[in-house]
C-alpha cells in the first residue's frame, strides 16, 4: 500500500514536467507566438505589455534558461499580470476558482450517483425494458451537442416557462438577501448548468457501470454466493456491487479532463463566473498570460483529481491495499 502510494506520488513529477513542457512548447513554437505580426497588430496589446511578457518569459535568453525560469515561476504560481487590467493572473484565477469547483464538484457527484444507479439497474435486468430505454437515452446523450442542449433548456425554462434563471451565479439583489434566500438563489442558478454539465458524463458513466456490473454478475464467486444460499438482493447489492464499483473510482479521475475542459463552453453559455469563462474572455482579448495560467492550473487540478482517485482506489481495493 505505502509502496503503491509512493510510486503514484513519484509519477507526478514526470507528468508535471510534461505539462509544463507542452505549455511551454505551445508558447514558443507556434507561429502566432509573442513576437509575431498577429500580436503586434492587436491593438489591445500595448507594446509595453509585450515588453513585459518578454521579460517574464525571458525571451532574450537561451531556450533552456527560459524554460527553467518559467517553471520556477509557475511553481510559485506566478503567471505574470493580465494584459487587460494589469492585475496578477493568479489573483484573477483565485477569484474564479470557487465557482468552477462548485459547479464541477456538484456535477461530478450527480454524475456518479445517478450514473451508478442507472448502470446497476440496467445490469440487473439486462435486456429488460428499463435497460432498453436507458440504452437509447444514453446513446442520444452521447450524441447530443451539450451547448445545444444548454440553449434548448435555456429557452424552455428561462424564456418560455420563466422558471429558472439562465445566466450568472446569483441574482442582482443577492447582497440584500437573507442567508436562506441566498442559498435558494444559488441553487436556482445552479440547476441548468449542473444538469448540462452532468448530462454527457452521465451517459458515459452509466454505460460503464452497466458493463462492469454485467461482467461481475457472470463471475464464479457470484455463483458461489447463490450456492451458499445468499438472498438475491444481498448478492447483487453487496457481493457484486462492491466489485463492480471499484473500477469506477479510477474513472472518476479519468473523467476530470473532459469535465474541466468542457467547463469553458458551459460557463460561457451560462455566464458562469468561473475559470472556464475567464479563459474564454481572455482568449477573445488575446490576454495570453491569463490563458496560459488557466490552462496550467486546469492541468494541475486534473492531475490532483487523478491522484486522489488513484489513492482512493488503493484504499478501497484490498488487492492493492494489502499486497
Amino acid at each position, binding site marked *: 500500500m505505502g509502496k503503491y502510494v509512493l510510486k503514484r506520488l513519484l509519477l507526478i513529477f514526470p507528468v508535471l514536467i510534461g505539462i509544463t513542457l507542452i505549455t511551454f512548447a505551445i508558447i514558443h513554437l507556434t507561429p502566432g507566438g509573442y513576437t509575431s505580426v498577429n500580436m503586434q497588430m492587436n491593438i489591445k496589446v500595448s507594446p509595453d505589455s509585450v515588453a513585459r511578457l518578454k521579460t517574464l518569459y525571458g525571451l532574450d535568453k537561451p531556450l533552456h534558461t527560459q524554460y527553467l525560469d518559467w517553471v520556477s515561476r509557475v511553481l510559485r504560481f506566478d503567471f505574470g499580470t493580465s494584459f487587460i487590467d494589469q492585475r496578477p493572473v493568479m489573483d484573477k484565477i483565485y477569484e474564479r476558482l470557487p465557482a468552477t469547483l462548485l459547479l464541477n464538484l456538484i456535477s461530478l457527484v450527480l454524475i456518479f450517483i445517478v450514473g451508478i444507479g442507472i448502470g446497476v439497474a440496467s445490469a440487473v435486468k439486462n435486456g429488460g425494458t428499463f435497460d432498453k430505454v436507458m440504452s437509447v437515452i444514453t446513446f442520444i446523450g452521447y450524441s447530443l451537442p451539450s451547448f445545444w442542449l444548454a440553449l434548448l433548456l435555456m429557452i424552455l425554462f428561462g424564456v418560455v416557462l420563466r422558471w429558472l434563471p439562465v445566466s450568472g451565479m446569483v441574482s442582482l439583489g443577492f447582497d440584500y438577501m437573507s442567508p436562506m434566500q441566498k442559498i435558494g438563489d444559488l441553487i436556482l442558478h445552479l440547476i441548468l448548468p449542473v444538469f448540462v454539465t452532468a448530462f454527457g458524463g452521465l451517459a458515459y458513466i452509466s454505460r460503464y457501470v452497466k458493463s462492469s456490473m454485467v461482467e461481475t454478475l457472470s463471475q464464479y464467486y457470484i455463483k458461489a454466493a447463490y450456492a451458499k*444460499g445468499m438472498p438475491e438482493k444481498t448478492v447483487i447489492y453487496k*457481493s457484486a456491487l462492491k466489485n463492480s464499483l471499484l473500477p469506477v473510482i479510477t474513472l472518476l479521475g479519468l473523467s476530470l479532463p473532459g469535465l474541466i475542459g468542457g467547463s469553458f463552453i458551459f460557463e460561457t453559455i451560462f455566464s458562469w463566473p468561473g475559470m472556464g469563462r475567464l479563459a474564454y474572455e481572455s482568449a477573445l482579448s488575446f490576454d495570453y498570460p491569463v490563458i496560459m495560467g488557466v490552462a496550467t492550473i486546469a492541468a494541475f487540478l486534473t492531475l490532483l483529481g487523478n491522484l486522489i482517485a488513484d489513492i482512493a482506489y488503493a484504499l478501497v481495493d484490498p488487492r492493492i491495499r494489502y499486497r
Partner: protein
Amino acid sequence: MKNIIEIQNLTVEYKIKEGLVHALTGVELHIQKGEAIAIVGESGCGKSTLASALINLVALNAVKSGTVKINDMEILSAGKKVLENIRGKEIGIIFQEAGAALNPVFTVKEQIEETITAHFGKLEKPELEKRGLALLEETGLNDRERIYKAYPHQLSGGQQQRVMIAIALSCNPEILIADEPTTALDVTVQAQIMALLKKLKKDRNLTLILITHDLHLAVDMAQRIVVMYAGEIVEEGKISQEKDAMHPYSRALFELIPDINAEARDFKIIPGEVPDMTTKENKCRFFGRCATAKPKCGTMHPEYEKVKEGHAVRCFYPVKD
C-alpha cells in the same frame, strides 16, 4: 435406509444459437443419507451441470424437466425462498477453483459470517466470530486469527480451498458437494484436502458427492461410483478396481490412471472426442470411441439396465471378465 436425494428423469438443456445443448438426459440417481458417492467423467460430460441442478442453480438459458428431491422436497419447481433455505443449509458446495469462488473484495470473516447470518439470522458478534474460528479449526487451518481477517488473495491455494470448505459447512448441511475440489491445487495439497474431506465426512456423517474426472480419487473416496458420458449416466455401482467396471467407457477411464509402478509414465488418452451435444442420434453416445463396439451400437441407443444388485450399465455388451 432413507434416500436423502432422489433424482428422476432429470433433463437439462441449454438454448444456444446453434440449437439445444443436451447437458443432461434422463438422469436417475438415488443417494442415501451418509453415503459417499463419486460422479466421474471427462469435462463436458454433464457432471457439473448435475451438481448445479441439485441446488437448482443452472444458467438462465437452461430448460429443466424431471424431478430432484432433497429430503422429499422437490426443488426444480421450488420458489426462491425455499431454494435459499436449501442452498448452504442443507447442501453445501465446494467449487473447483476456490480462488475464483471467493469474493476478492471481502474478508474471510465477512464471507463466513454473511453465510451464517443468511441462514440463522443476526447473531451476537462474539458468537459469530467464535463459530467462524471454530470452522477454520475444523478445516485444519493454523494461524486462524490472521486468516480470518485476511482477503482471499492473501491466502495460498490450499488455504483458500479450506476456507471454501469452512464456508460450505458453516450452516451444518447434511449434504456436501465437492466439484473437482483439488483440480487447481498441486499434488501434496491435493492429498491433504482429500484427507480433510474424508475426515469431515466421518466426523459430521455427511452425505458426500464428489465430482471428479479422476477415477483414482473417486475410488479412494466413494463407496459407489457413477460414471457419466455425454450427459447420461452410463454406469453406476460399487467399483473399486478396473475389473469391477462393466462399461467400456469406465474401463477406458481406468486406463487413464497412470500406473505408479510402471517405468515409463505414459499418459494414455481415450481416442476421439465427446460427441456433439447438440445432436441426439439414435446410437450409443460412446460409439466411435468405443474399442469393443459392434454394429448394433451404431443403430440403437442402449437403455440403462440393471445387471446385478446395486449395479446398472447403459451398454448392449457389458464387459465381464
